[in-house]
């Protein structure tokens, strides 16, 4: 079995009649954080949905822990936690109830203390935790969704714009949290607009443009990717 947790090989995906991913190839090693950057409609969410098996490749392969996604979706779902683009949780339930519900379904047993700790990590106000999500702001819902993804204790995280809607302090806390998870061996594939945040936590950054991987940046041993370099590349690609 490959030591790669996530692998895309010549991945082509079509949505409607249009080809939205063309020959995308990249891989993420176990315990690494990979950030996928790109403008709106570049194909970032499509990439995640393909790894989750909700979209089938027209050609090429998407593998998770060496397993072809299309061949065994259940395996992929058991091994991973997914944070959707819109925090898709139940508005009629409180933060705690949402977490209890999805964790019970995932067969993950967490104590109430674990749950409170996770909500502390994402710094969700304590007085809000017993209120229904229909009263939450977008950022608060996003925090609950992040807490859920973490609490799943899955070896792999697929995060679609996890920091959207979060305030700057919360973004910093989130980045710290991801770094800590990676240290403890979790593999993360995240989609983001936040160049600086991505460079802070990711060991590798991919730049996606109109379905094609047009740039790949890797952190030097013991160092970080330079945000300026990525930013320039991003801006250049954007102009074309």
């Amino acid at each position: 079995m490959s030591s790669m947790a996530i692998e895309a090989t010549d991945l082509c995906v079509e949505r409607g009649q249009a080809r939205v991913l063309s020959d995308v190839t990249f891989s993420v090693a176990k315990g690494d954080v990979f950030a996928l950057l790109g403008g709106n409609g570049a194909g970032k969410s499509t990439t995640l949905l393909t790894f989750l098996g909700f979209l089938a490749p027209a050609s090429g392969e998407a593998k998770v822990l060496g397993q072809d996604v299309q061949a065994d979706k259940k395996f992929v779902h058991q091994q991973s936690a997914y944070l959707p683009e819109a925090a898709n949780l139940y508005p009629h339930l409180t933060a705690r109830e949402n977490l209890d519900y999805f964790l019970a379904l995932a067969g993950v047993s967490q104590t109430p203390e674990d749950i409170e700790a996770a909500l502390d990590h994402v710094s969700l106000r304590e007085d809000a935790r017993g209120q229904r999500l229909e009263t939450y702001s977008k950022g608060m819902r996003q925090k609950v969704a992040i807490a859920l993804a973490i609490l799943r204790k899955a070896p792999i995280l697929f995060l679609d714009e996890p920091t959207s809607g979060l305030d700057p302090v919360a973004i910093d806390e989130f980045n710290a949290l991801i770094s800590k998870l990676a240290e403890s061996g979790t593999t993360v594939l995240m989609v983001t607009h936040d160049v600086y945040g991505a460079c802070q936590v990711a060991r590798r950054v991919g730049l996606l443009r109109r379905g094609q991987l047009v740039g790949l940046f890797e952190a030097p041993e013991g160092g970080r990717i330079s945000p300026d370099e990525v930013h320039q590349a991003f801006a250049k690609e954007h102009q074309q």
Partner: protein
Amino acid sequence: MKPALIIAAGEWRFWLRSKLGVAALILGFVLITTSLVANSARVGAERASRDSLQTAAEETFRNQPDRHPHRMVHYGHYVFRAPAPLAVVDPGVDPYTGTVMFLEGHHQNSATFAPAFSGARAGALARLTPAMAYQLLVPLVLIVIGFASMAREREGGTDRQLLTAGVAPHDIWLGKVIALLGVSAALLFPLVLAASQALFAGESFVVTTTFIVGYAVYLTVWALMIAAVSTSTRQLSTSLMALMVLWLALCLMVPPVVASFARMASPMPSKIEADLEVAVALREQGDGHNANDPAFNRLRANLLEQYGVHHVEDLPINFRGVVAEAAEADLTDTMNTFAEKKLAGEVAQARVQHWLSLLSPQLAVRHFSMTLASTDLAQHHRFTREAEAARFSFVQGLNRVHAEQMTYTDDINRSRDKGAEQRTRVSAENWRVLDEFRFAPAPASDRLAGSSLFLLVLLLWAAGFAALGRARALALTEAAHA
């Protein structure tokens, strides 16, 4: 806990927190309970009144003074159809067909006093039977509660959250179905109570249980239909629309279309045409009141020969009574031929309707319910036949008395001769020829056999929607290319 059960519990929590779910559930209970209470009071009152009227009619007949037996033939008698125990849930055709029949010599009257027509002014809801509430309104309640079950997850994107939590798609679907079955079971509770009331009123245990099971299967069909449609639609509004269209079609449109089709497929003459036909046929038969009618010449000749005498006055029996008896038998034969033709026509229409119940679970459960409750058309036919048998029996009993307990000479002279008139009055003891008439439900085994086909139809519908819903659920993880 199993994932499907967690999903089901989650669904219940959603309903209890949504005003729509709670309101629909309460409305469902109110409708069912009011219809049950009203109907059971009505049926109870009718049972008691028909029972006492029957006893009173029998006593009145038997307490008539000594008189000429033919006067009793014309005095006549009433029989009442007692409602079956399960009529508290499903009065079936009872409110539309007559429940009282006047029995007399020389005529077959149709049953009269159909409560639905006298109660028509009380408004539509007054006629909402529990059977209708369960067949038409409870599915609507289930739709209002359940249309969102899967569509809500799909519209809100939580379906993917569930799937990526590792829940198998068929478990999500199953959970939704279980939750809806829970609602059905709760709504079925009043029916169980009402059916147990029928049990105490003497209904068979197997029939009562099967009755409840049939309704449970019917609601299961709807639960599965709702889950299947909700799983097939991405939007709440689409799901609700599709289900409303299905409800309209299956509950409101198909049944009348099937009924008119049945009428077209086996047309029947109108009542006037049919009555005229009988009248024409009867005109050709002799008048039983006139022993000299040439129609009875042959009967007279046979009798004279049998007893070896030359004049009817010399016969040991009253020839007029013999004629009355023979004429009644002939007349009844003719009337029965026409009556059976009419019943056969109705049965043919009913048979077409029974087959077409494949088209709608509502039709299937309606026939199932009436058959088991013993309130279907076949039972009305049986009442008609039993009443006719009772009529024929007491009329012929009186005609026998007429033939045996007076002389021909007295009988023909009774309007001229006071003494003869006295001698042709027979003892009131003879009025005991009248049998007690009690209309009982059909045997349990007949009803079970008759209803099993409809139960099978319901099971087929359930299996179809189960397969569809499961397939649609499995398609949720099938990668979309679009």
